[in-house]
């Protein structure tokens, strides 16, 4: 399973709620969150796990506009396409 994993990272102009709903729809559970500072901005980083597959979602904290969460997927080809297409539609 693990050696078939694909890697993909995208920045999307989609609300976090929509991404989270898509991620939970395909069976991923929230495993942990942390606050990070990158590029001089504060981000909330969330890790979702489904067996050996992981999805991390980083969203800027505060009233920044537009918000473009970064989604990083390490999972099957199917997971990558579902999350990416789900975030686009």
């Amino acid at each position, binding site marked *: 399973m*693990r*050696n078939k*994993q*694909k*890697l*993909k*990272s*995208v*920045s999307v102009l989609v609300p976090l709620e929509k991404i989270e709903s898509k991620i939970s729809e395909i069976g991923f559970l929230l*495993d*942990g*969150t*942390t*606050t*990070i*500072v*990158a*590029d001089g901005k*504060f*981000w909330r*980083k*969330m*890790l979702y796990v489904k067996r050996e597959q*992981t999805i*991390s979602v*980083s969203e800027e*904290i*505060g009233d920044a506009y537009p918000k473009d969460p*970064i989604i*990083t997927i*390490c999972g099957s080809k199917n997971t990558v396409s579902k999350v990416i297409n789900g975030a686009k539609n």
Partner: protein
Amino acid sequence: MPLYECNEQQFVENIRRLIETSEKFLVNRRICLHDDAKYGPATLPNDEFKRYAIICMRKSLKSTVFSKVPFIDDFHARMYDKGENIHGSSSLMFPRMSIPYYKVEYSINVWGGTYFFTFDALFDPEIIIEKRSVKRLGTGILIHVLKYNAPDERVLTINLPKDVMVFDVKNMVRVIDYSSNF
């Protein structure tokens, strides 16, 4: 050797491209604890400051932070009185209520260039009421205690496929490449 800074998306996508070309490469990772007053409650965004709202207050972002109640900063073994000036954005080093953090650095060396992605992961505050003995206030009193919990390593790290080798390093020494002079 040129250094190129990336954000998370760029760094991961660069790794993906390298995987797809079957190019051999190594990812270096450095995780180091810092507590140098770089981060304090005055400079936190409002949503993040709310996590400290039980023990301290401020008018707005970057304004002086005062303690609302007496509390003990367990990580630094320090006590603050009620109404004490505990952090200001104009003078970050003093008075200092420092939030510890991990500095996480990822880098890859490809074709003579170093591509890196770096971020700081703040420790999570946990505020509880505990029975403590404090010289000025007495023994066995109930007092707010601020504890800092290190973020979980799973959330800190970038998850990469198994065939990508990640080496943990203590430091990265920059090497000057003189070969371009000839």
